[in-house]
């Protein structure tokens, strides 16, 4: 007590001295600094580390179900040790398989690539790159992380209940997910899934509103909207998408909870399950799909846009050239964000949707290819006549572009309803969205981590391990998902854990084995990255140059280890856009440098 009173006047004094300037010298306990932190950088790290832990869990699950796909019917005694009656005798039972698949999807889509990706980089980059001391509402920001944490706890707990977690697929279509009688995964696990999702949505809304208000209101002097670095624009559109579409999923989830527990019939009609006639009439199972995909499709872009933004930045910095067509990049982000809301029914071409409506969605869906093509060509032109430094971040950014091209082009197959009739719900879909959304965004995330790790921790990641990580992952990703398209062309449905009883689908045994082995190798490479990450936080090579990549953006004008408040003294003023690389013979010109008298215009 006496200590506290002793310290207090000092704090007050330091406030008077650095009035309006330094916020970094508050005395912080372990709890306020590392746990209930309101510093956007710490919250970003919390999102990142939680995301990494979830990624390990989700990735491990995929290895486990790949074991079943590669070696159907084979026993793995070690599984019984860990999973008990789910893997009796080491055999992966169907319930277990479907639980793994469902959890893999849910975890990776929501916890890793939504919270882990935009949670991390929106928190880290927005205040640093727009020139603000913190988010518009640091407290709400802290709550956003803790609601995410809570959502994770609820999801995790569902894995420990007797009947297991939700297992109706990450889309959780009713009636399967609504009827307790339809399977183990539709019992308490499904309720926990829905509750967890509701908490997650609350978290992402609080985060999103914060990101939007910070970007709109808290830019530093001179930072007009068209001088914003592209990651900020991407994160801005991401937040807008999330704020407008997540509430729709919330309503869908709540109606499903009602149907499950309160006897309502929003999604249920004419159902006889296991010989039991249910009283529900008048509901529509398809309604849920509309609500789900009204979020679900923008969700794809919520995952992809931050990666696009960071890749634009990283490619520009490391090819020592301005991003080509800044306004076109911005316009295409905007077009993608708008179109993201107008294409959801392309997931529903074969649900009995009115064919005319289907054709409208074909048109709108394929329209997205135009802004996507613009982005790709602009990235290619950014590389053209550059002077490219291949940091691990650059390699991951180049890998992102390659994967985005491959996966984007297969989207043109699926978005065309005629072809979708054959390919819908086959392995082709699995291959497509893993490449374009899963692996590509993961590459964007890795690129971001390698690039901004020095800003986060004041140390470098080991780059030799980084190169190894990149090469194993890109080769592995293509080996896993490229041949998978052929399985889809052969009509093999998704979520088939054993194809031996089928005449048409049992030709791919060797391929499945190969994919399983490669996925284990790729998973091991990710573990190596995780090790590198945690090792480097404490033991990595120290950063000595506050601007190690020679970049223009504001985050590199902060001290190497910025405190809460980011800049000591005044927030710098901005005089130019973020991409003056190679201009007038100078390698880079930071945003803070005033326009010179003889400087050429662009």
């Amino acid at each position, binding site marked *: 007590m006496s200590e506290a009173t002793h310290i207090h006047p000092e704090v007050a004094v330091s406030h008077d001295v650095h009035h309006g300037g330094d916020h970094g010298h508050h005395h912080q306990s372990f709890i306020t600094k590392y746990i209930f932190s309101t510093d956007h950088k710490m919250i970003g790290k919390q999102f990142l580390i939680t995301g990494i832990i979830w990624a390990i869990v989700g990735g491990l699950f995929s290895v486990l179900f790949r074991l079943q796909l590669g070696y159907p019917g084979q026993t793995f005694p070690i599984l019984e040790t860990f999973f008990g009656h789910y893997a009796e005798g080491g055999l992966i039972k169907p319930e277990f398989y479907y639980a793994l698949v469902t959890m893999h999807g849910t975890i990776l889509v929501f916890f890793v690539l939504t919270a882990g990706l935009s949670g991390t980089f929106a928190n880290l980059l927005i205040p640093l790159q727009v020139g603000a001391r913190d988010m518009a509402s640091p407290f709400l920001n802290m709550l956003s992380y803790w609601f995410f944490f809570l959502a994770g706890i609820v999801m995790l707990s569902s894995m420990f209940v007797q009947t297991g977690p939700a297992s109706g697929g990450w889309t959780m279509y009713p009636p399967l997910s609504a009827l307790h009688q339809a399977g183990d995964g539709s019992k308490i696990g499904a309720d926990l899934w829905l509750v967890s999702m509701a908490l997650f949505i609350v978290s992402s809304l609080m985060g999103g509103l914060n990101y939007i208000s910070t970007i709109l209101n808290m830019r530093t002097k001179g930072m007009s909207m068209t001088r914003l670095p592209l990651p900020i624009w991407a994160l801005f559109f991401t937040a807008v998408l999330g704020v407008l579409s997540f509430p729709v999923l919330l309503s869908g989830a709540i109606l499903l909870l009602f149907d499950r527990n309160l006897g309502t019939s929003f999604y249920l009609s004419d159902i006889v399950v296991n010989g039991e006639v249910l009283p529900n009439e008048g509901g529509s199972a398809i309604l849920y799909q509309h609500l789900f995909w009204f979020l679900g499709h923008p969700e794809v872009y919520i995952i992809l846009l931050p990666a696009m933004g960071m890749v634009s930045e990283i490619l520009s910095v490391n090819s020592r050239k301005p991003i080509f067509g800044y306004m076109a990049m911005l316009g295409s982000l905007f077009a993608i964000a708008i179109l993201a809301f107008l294409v959801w029914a392309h997931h529903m071409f074969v649900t009995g949707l009115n064919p005319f409506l289907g054709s409208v969605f074909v048109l709108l869906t394929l329209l997205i290819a135009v802004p996507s093509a613009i982005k790709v060509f602009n990235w290619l032109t950014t590389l053209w006549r550059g002077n490219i430094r291949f940091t691990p971040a650059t390699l991951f950014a180049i890998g992102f572009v390659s994967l985005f091209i491959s996966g984007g082009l297969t989207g043109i*197959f699926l978005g065309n309803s005629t072809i979708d009739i054959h390919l819908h719900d086959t392995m082709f879909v699995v291959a497509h969205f893993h490449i374009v959304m899963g692996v590509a965004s993961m590459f964007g995330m890795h690129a971001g981590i390698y690039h901004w790790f020095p800003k986060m921790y004041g140390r470098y990641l080991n780059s030799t391990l980084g190169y190894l990580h990149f090469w194993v992952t890109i080769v592995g990703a293509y080996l896993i998902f490229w041949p998978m398209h052929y399985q889809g062309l052969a009509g093999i449905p998704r979520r088939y854990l054993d194809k031996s009883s089928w005449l048409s689908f049992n030709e791919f045994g060797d391929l499945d084995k190969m994919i399983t082995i490669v996925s284990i190798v790729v998973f091991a490479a990710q573990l190596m990255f995780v090790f590198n990450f945690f090792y480097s936080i404490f033991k990595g090579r120290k950063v000595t140059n506050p601007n190690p990549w020679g970049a223009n953006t504001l985050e590199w004008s902060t001290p190497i280890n910025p405190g809460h408040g980011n800049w000591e003294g005044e927030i710098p003023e901005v005089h130019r856009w973020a991409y003056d690389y190679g201009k007038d013979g100078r390698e880079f010109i930071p945003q803070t440098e005033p326009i010179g008298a003889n400087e050429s215009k662009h």
Partner: protein
Amino acid sequence: MQTFFIVLILGLGFLITFQIAKASEYVGIMRGEEKSKKQTNKINAFLLLVFLIGGMIGVYYCNERLKDKILGAPASDHGVYIDTMLYITIAITGVVFFITQVILFWFSFKYQESDKRKAYYYPHNNKLELIWTVIPAIALTVLVGFGIFYWFKITGEAPKNAMVVEITGSQFKWEFRYPGKDKILGKKYFKQIDDAANNQLGQLWDDPANHDDIYITGEPMHLVVNRPVKLVIGAKDVIHDVGLAHFRMKMDAVPGTPTTMWFTPTKTTKQMREETNNPAFMFEISCDQMCGRGHFGMRGEIIVENQEEYDAWILSKKPKYFSVFPDRDPANQKADTTKPAAAPVARN
């Protein structure tokens, strides 16, 4: 024990990789950071080129290995449309894929960091950007045009002479119903579904259209070659999906909302057996929508045959009505007709 060794080996591999990585970092610093950076830059640029060439060979090899394992020529008229559309799309996207990937990796290799070159300040060029907005837009217009043209052909009304077959999914089996001589499927109501009363589909027996309907389960659906068929699709419990890979057709089975699809099978099962050189060949019905623990085994079969074979098969089947009410079966004319029928209450 085996698992233990695998874990041990993996752990050791990790450790060794990490030590090498750490050492190489130190060596790099000792040899001079700039010099070692230049060297890794060269290596990675070269590897990107290797990846491009290796990748292209891989794409070719993968196609050679796997192209014969996919389904072969479609067995329905709609399947031909869908495959045509598929090939158009493969052609257009294939060209784009090849060009953009080559440019991406070639530029990466060619413009690797060098002391001799200065990056070229090139922030935008409206003409170029216009060109690569318009070209994709034109290519996509072609794809959308063809796509919608075929889509309306496939999803349009079924021809008048189409035969009608009802298919109902439930965890984890398929049941079929043929409309009988009147060509009309009788009314049904889900609350009448009762396996004990031998009414698996909930048919309403006071609808005369039901009296000649034939119920089939546990054996293949029979279709007539070159005769359009309209499937009326339903589900009892959760959403299923009627997937017909060889016909390239697919439609969800949604409880409470009947759906339909139609197509014309163009090859008999016998023909397919000859073409594929596989005497066991069968057209399969796969469930393509996650429906629970038995989803992966929810299999049905279809036999496509000529009209005579089909007529002989359908004649051997008795309407369901007569097995529920044996006394009304003309074959049992002498049965007691005074006994009140245990007909379920009808709904209007």
